[in-house]
């Protein structure tokens, strides 16, 4: 059975077509890497699947059901780790987890043991009473993935989970992801710019550019097709070597200003 099935999905923002008629399937229990240059439409696609955005056209099926029709049921199956942190920095690690546990309707007696278990797994147990604002980038990321796993989702979305982290933490995060996948048979939908990592962890790869999927298959297939040795070379071969001009939106600018002030 396919965990995610997308057919002719399109998203338009006024005149701009962010996602242009894409179709793909993610079989259950696989790691699916969704790759593409900045601004290719990766995050928009994730937002549409996770019910944060409504598609302009096309169909999304999650385990055979349309997430837009029965949103809460679909949302319960998702664990989402967004590109930028969504933790409350004025709460402690434990409180962030507890908040999540209540939102996802985890029975009261299970909350504490489950949170402890995950914090242990992600090696954050000794810092659970610290405010998140005192955490390093890597710890925040780990906490966020731990939180995303708390309600044992069927599909884990990781939008650039290793962005801006040191090699140690990046390796660790992929190790966790692999372990979690084996332990709970979850499907993982990830995006990343670190193609070596994506290659190592993914069962299937799709490359998206300018809103269109230009390749879908295994990384061995793509290398064969482009006659290159690594996924990174194949990626450059397919998407071209131009640097993407991504104008910073007003939101980004505001965020930067606020970060500078803190």
């Amino acid at each position, binding site marked *: 059975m396919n965990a995610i099935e997308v057919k002719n999905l399109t998203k338009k923002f006024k005149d701009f077509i962010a996602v242009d008629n894409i179709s793909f399937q993610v079989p259950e229990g696989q790691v699916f890497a969704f790759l593409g240059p900045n601004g290719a439409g990766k995050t928009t696609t994730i937002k549409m699947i*996770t*019910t*944060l955005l409504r598609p302009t056209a096309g169909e999304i099926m999650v385990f055979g059901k349309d997430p837009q029709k029965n*949103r*809460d*049921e679909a*949302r*319960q199956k*998702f664990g*989402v780790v*967004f590109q*930028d*942190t*969504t*933790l*409350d*920095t*004025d*709460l402690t690690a434990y*409180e962030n987890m*507890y*908040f*999540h546990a*209540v*939102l*996802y*309707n985890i029975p009261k007696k299970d909350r504490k043991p489950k949170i402890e278990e995950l914090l242990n797994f992600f090696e954050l147990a000794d810092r659970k009473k610290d*405010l998140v604002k005192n955490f390093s980038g890597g710890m925040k990321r780990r906490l966020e993935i731990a939180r995303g796993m708390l309600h044992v989702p069927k599909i884990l979305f990781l939008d650039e989970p290793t962005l801006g982290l040191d090699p140690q933490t990046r390796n660790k995060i992929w190790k966790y992801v692999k372990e979690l996948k084996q332990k709970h048979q979850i499907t993982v939908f990830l995006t990343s710019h670190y193609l070596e990592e994506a290659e190592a962890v993914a069962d299937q790869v799709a490359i998206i550019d300018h809103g269109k999927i230009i390749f879908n298959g295994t990384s061995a297939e793509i290398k064969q097709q482009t006659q290159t040795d690594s996924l990174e070379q194949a990626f450059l071969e397919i998407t071209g070597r131009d640097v993407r001009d991504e104008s910073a939106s007003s*939101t980004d600018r*505001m*965020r930067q200003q*606020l970060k500078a002030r803190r």
Partner: protein
Amino acid sequence: MKHLKVIYIIWLRQLKRFIRSYSRIFGSLAQPLLFLVALGYGFGSIYEQAGGGNYIQFLAPGVIAMTVIFTAMFNGTSLVFDKQFGFVKETLVAPVSRFSIMFGRALGGATVATIQGVIVFFLAMLFGFSPIS
């Protein structure tokens, strides 16, 4: 039942954030304090000479109401900050109704504003405001 739990936890979050931000609590007390001191003592004598009676008695309820309004407004705008910093997304992808998210926040903001109002109320009493005439 589930809605109540969600509303409660969002309310609790607002409250925890409020209690932890000492600077904000004291900062937001500065303005009412200024009004009570500067206007209270400054205009007090003129007001009394004009036959208006005790000026603090007249001023304090207004200052308290203003504190409640401003704190509530600040809590409303904090939604914008949460949106910029992404925390709103965490609640939006969760299987909870949008109504409970909004209601929890509104309730949290209202509680925080009420607490601030009560603090200013007792502060005003220090300056000679007596609610029972």
